[in-house]
């Protein structure tokens, strides 16, 4: 299986003493939907920021689509990030822009050859793709519900047709109905965008097992187990068994 993302023996320390990531290695297969799970403080968000090139590893390498991120200068890295589409936990919509403007923004920034009409057309298509009613297109983020904000955030992440879609704890803090809606949206988006590699960082074990092709469980800055969801049910690792039983009980 070809890897879209290769994290090779990455160690990360912010103060030069304590390491948050302690020799973490992970290969995310191309075109897969991979979930990264683990207890709080195990390094999931730090790993994600390494993959996005927001952090540089203290030791080790992060390769995305075959490119070693440490070889890129800041400007090249900024451009390289166009390969990513990210849905944040809070959706992180620009609150002074309408829903349509939010989705148009990456297109205006990176597809300068497009006319305003073409930008509008693409943005509307992306919003329809994630199931947002056109009557909300001209509303501000504060005027729509949390679920609609997630849809808008996803449409914005999809705007540039990225090769890698990243979901940073997309369902944390949502009610069960909204959680299921977002999970289904992620699954549908992954299926509808052939060739896209999706990574989801989540606390929601049930969702991770239901929608992901592969799951990576982190513990103490390392990958404790990487495999298909069924591998986790069969695992004899004590921490995995505890996490799975707690996660399922909670669900």
């Amino acid at each position: 299986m070809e890897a879209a993302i290769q994290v090779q023996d990455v160690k990360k320390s912010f103060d030069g003493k304590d390491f948050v990531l302690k020799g973490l290695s992970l290969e995310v297969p191309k075109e897969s939907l991979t979930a990264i799970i683990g207890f709080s403080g195990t390094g999931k968000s730090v790993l994600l920021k390494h993959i996005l090139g927001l952090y540089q590893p203290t030791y080790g390498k992060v390769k995305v689509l075959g490119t070693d991120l440490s070889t890129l200068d800041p400007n090249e890295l900024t451009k390289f990030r166009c390969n990513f589409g990210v849905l944040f936990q809070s959706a992180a919509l620009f609150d002074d822009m309408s829903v349509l403007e939010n989705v148009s923004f990456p297109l205006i920034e990176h597809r300068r050859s497009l006319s305003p009409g073409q930008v509008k057309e693409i943005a509307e298509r992306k919003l329809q793709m994630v199931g947002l009613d056109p009557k909300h297109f001209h509303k501000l983020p504060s005027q729509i519900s949390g679920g609609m904000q997630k849809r808008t955030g996803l449409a914005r992440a999809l705007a540039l047709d990225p090769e890698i879609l990243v979901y940073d704890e997309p369902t944390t803090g949502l009610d069960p109905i909204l959680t299921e809606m977002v999970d289904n949206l992620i699954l549908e988006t992954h299926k509808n965008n052939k060739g896209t590699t999706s990574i989801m960082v989540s606390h929601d074990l049930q969702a991770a097992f239901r929608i992901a092709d592969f799951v990576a469980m982190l513990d103490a800055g390392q990958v404790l187990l990487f495999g298909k969801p069924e591998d986790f049910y069969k695992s004899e690792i004590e921490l995995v068994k505890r996490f799975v039983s707690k996660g399922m009980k909670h669900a």
Partner: protein
Amino acid sequence: MVTAVRNFVSEIGSMVVFMTSSLRLLMSPPNRWSEILKHMEFIGNKSVGIISLTSLFTGLALSLQIYLGFKIINAVNLVGPTVALGVTRELGPVLTGLIVAARAGGAMAARLGTMRVNEQIDALDVMGVNTRQYLIGPRIFAAVICMPLLTAVFDFVAMVGSYILVVFLIELDQAIFLEKIRQTVQVKHIMEGLFKSAVFGLVFGLVCTYRGFYTTGGAKGVGEATNQGVVTSMVLVIILDYFLTNLIRLFYLALGIQ
């Protein structure tokens, strides 16, 4: 003590790098004219009302105080030029700096801080947008451009206030008032104030964007960043005014200008 000095120097260094990189990036594509105009509208246009109001009353109050003082030594004819020199060289740039730093600088720090804690800056980063070029450069540039313009408004309206007090309320001779100003105030005095105000714009633009951009810790952090940004800017405006005045004096001396 040594650590505090080291931290202070390090912070100043970070700010300078932050400013130079943001302004340098502004020169590289894509152009940010629409962002610059948007921030100029906010910093400039939306400050005109408050600047006009405060400058009118500054002109009135200053003229009254100077009139009362000069009356004792029978020099009321010099009220106009004294007010004009005081306003164009000192009060205009300093008060405009303080007012705009509080109004626009505070808003800049709060806006950027909120964007930081709401992950909007992270969103821009991962969208491949250079956040310094998009968020910081245009704000600092707009502050530098708008401050001299606002100071010019302050100077003009303050002198209108002085004229109202001197000519209509105290009923001194209008021709003397205007002629004395014409004899005393030179273009260099006005330019001096405008130059100072551009520096103040650079300072509050830098301090407030820096504080806002590096906000940490949620809503509390946004409040602290705004507070630190505004207070530091206001203190720096007053301190820098003294050094700039001396610097300009030395500059005139070096060029042999009286």
